[in-house]
């Protein structure tokens, strides 16, 4: 399932034009990305929360060469599923 498929599906379900749906979907995604980039979290009730988590620097090993490398501390976007959605998937 790709973005084009999703947009078409949404257009079909809602009855809006593909063009309008595409603009709104793109903006939704951009908005979520920008929100995360600023370090804020975004909670969507009944769906889940997107937030930024700090990961500490750690040692890792390159499995091919067996060489030890340092992974620097970084920030990662994580998604925590809501209880409601989790119960459906369970």
């Amino acid at each position: 399932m790709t973005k084009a498929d999703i947009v078409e599906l949404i257009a079909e379900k809602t009855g809006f034009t593909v063009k309008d749906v595409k603009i709104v979907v793109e903006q939704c995604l951009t908005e979520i990305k920008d929100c995360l980039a600023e370090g804020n979290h975004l909670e969507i009730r009944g769906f889940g929360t997107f937030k930024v988590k700090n990961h500490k620097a750690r040692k890792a090993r390159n499995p091919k060469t067996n060489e030890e490398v340092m992974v620097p501390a970084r920030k990662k976007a994580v998604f925590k599923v809501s209880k409601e959605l989790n119960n459906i998937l369970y």
Partner: protein
Amino acid sequence: MNKLELIESVAKKTGQSKSVAREVLDSLLDTVEQTLVCGHTIEIRGFGAFKLKRRESQRARNPRTGETVEVPSRFVPVFKPSKKLAEKVDK
């Protein structure tokens, strides 16, 4: 940020009404949900992918009573951010 703020911001920037923004967002979330329920992966280029991952059954302890309980294996959804998003976040 919550859903309402997201809807308001999207409506403002796209020039669409809030009800349109809400309906499209709801439909988008519903699509992601349904795809996962069906057991499929949903990938949105430039954003990330939602997948289901199997978690094996494990033993856990009820912290109050101290008794050991078996947690059955189950599927948990995971989100893998796209490279673009990962880079954007890690700045």
